[in-house]
């Protein structure tokens, strides 16, 4: 366990740097988490991150990759509705890396 310091606020993260408490998240913390992943956040990144948080609020789980690509395609245009687009934004995988930046728990299992 460790902590992440942002603007004088200290939040708890686990061994892999995921937020322990979902409610600790704000955009500044999201930006700091992105730095730990070497992801340079642009508007396109935030679109995905915000979608993940909305989905999580409704379903208590991150969306499946397929659900994510489809939703992004519907919302942001078909040219963005593919996993290649998402992997360009989040090279280590949209499910794990984007979830981390969004402050969501890491999806676990055979994935």
């Amino acid at each position, binding site marked *: 366990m460790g902590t992440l310091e942002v603007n004088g606020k200290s939040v708890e993260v686990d061994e892999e740097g995921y937020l322990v408490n979902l409610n600790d998240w704000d955009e500044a913390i999201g930006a700091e988490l992105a730095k730990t992943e070497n992801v340079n956040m642009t508007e396109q990144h935030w679109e995905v991150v915000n979608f993940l948080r909305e989905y999580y609020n409704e379903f208590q789980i991150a969306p499946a990759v397929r659900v994510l690509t489809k939703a992004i395609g519907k919302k942001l245009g078909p040219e963005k509705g593919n996993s290649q687009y998402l992997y360009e934004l989040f090279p280590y995988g949209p499910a794990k890396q984007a979830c981390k930046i969004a402050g969501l728990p890491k999806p676990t299992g055979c*994935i």
Partner: protein
Amino acid sequence: MAGPELKAPALREYPTAPALQPDAMAGLKCYVANEKIQEPLGFPGKLADNWQDTHDRVIGRMGELLKKYCSFKVFMDACVHCGACADKCHYFLGSGDPKNMPVARQDLMRSVYRRYFTPTGKMFPSLVGARDLTPEVLDEWYSYYWQCSECRRCSVFCPYGIDTAEITMVGRELLNYAGYGQKYLNEIIGKVHRVGNNLGLPGPALRDTLDGLEEDVKEDTGVDVKYPLDEKGAEVLLITPSADFFAEPHIDSTIGYGKVFHAAGISWTFSSLASEAGNFGMFIGNYDQLRKIALRIREAALDLGVKRIVVGECGHAWRVAYAFWNTLTGVGAGGKDPFAIELQKQLDPRFKQPSHICEVTWDLIQQGRLKFDKSANDHRVITFHDSCNVARASRMGDYPGGQFDIPRNIVRAVANKFHDMAEDTIGEKTFCCGGGGGVLTDELMDIRVKGALPRMEALQRVVDDHGVNFMATICAICKAQFTKVLPYYGFKSGMVGGVHQLVSTAIKLGNEQ
């Protein structure tokens, strides 16, 4: 991820035993489970403050297990150090660390067994390689029992049939018993109890995902293929790993399962209660967890009133289903409690209970109930990776080796181009993907990449000789592991996929012109 870039070992033209690199993987350590993860499973939250307490707890439990599992005692006593297993482990071949030789992995436990449970070891420990259990030994166990995927390849070559997987399972059980559990598996087991599956997908998220699949299939094919959830009175309950609802390429096989049932006119359903085929209780060698996880399936089957139970593409789940479900749950004969007996009466005796999805699909193909356009798979040159638990711990069909033939028969029925990898890397001698048995976690990526070496070498050969561009498999762990490690060896991550992904591509749904 941050951190140093991992490099894969070079592929060798003539794979032989590697030069020894003592302690190459010493100290590799996966994350330890905290109290919040450990305690709900009935394990101590952490190691005792006092070493003597930990020591006594571990040795006491080892004594219990020696009485409970006759196999464990035989395996401790029987080894003659002939060395037949030494170069059979993918983790040894990839890392060169001699402690990853199966015999050495066993000896980590055997040396302690001798010290406390054999007369010579009690009296003359140094003469018989016996050693005290110390904190250093416990750490060594933690490191090397999490560098074993319980794949059982070594046991195929052992003249005594010693099964290193069982020794690893005991090692992990003892570690859990000491309060020294692994985060990856134990956190997931907790999720199964709380939510119903390894991923933690609640019912509404499942339904939402399945709705999306129905839309996609309709768009692709024009046919209303249904992906039912919790449908009472369905004939078949399909139990599949939750990764099949979530990850790529897993989900393409899920689409395939639905198309098979649709084309054959069989009513079926998933269950939100039992939305996980995987049973990580086996990986940690803990009978109580194994049973508790399996009982969810019985509960769902009784509740939904299904007549058949079918298991999706998941390697170790098929071992648990094939070998243990009967006595654990009453799926199949053997369970003797009232609910098990009730379930045995409910299930249709004309079908194998449980059946593997590949058995179902192959039966339907043989009956002429499925039609394919094989040319739809012509862009693929396919090989098949046998998953360890299917290959060496279970069977399909009604003859020995059916588990090797049936998936290949399906591939050949739905595609034109198929080539097997080298004989000594498939079938019962198949190499593990490198991520099985509880090793599929990011912090173990180094050993996962190294452990994939023998499979990657075999794959490279069929790529060079036949232009193979698709490796089919029937295990969620294999799919996830290969997706991650293929790029380290210069392959595309998208070249791995499921057998039912291939079925899905070629199957005719009855609306063709």
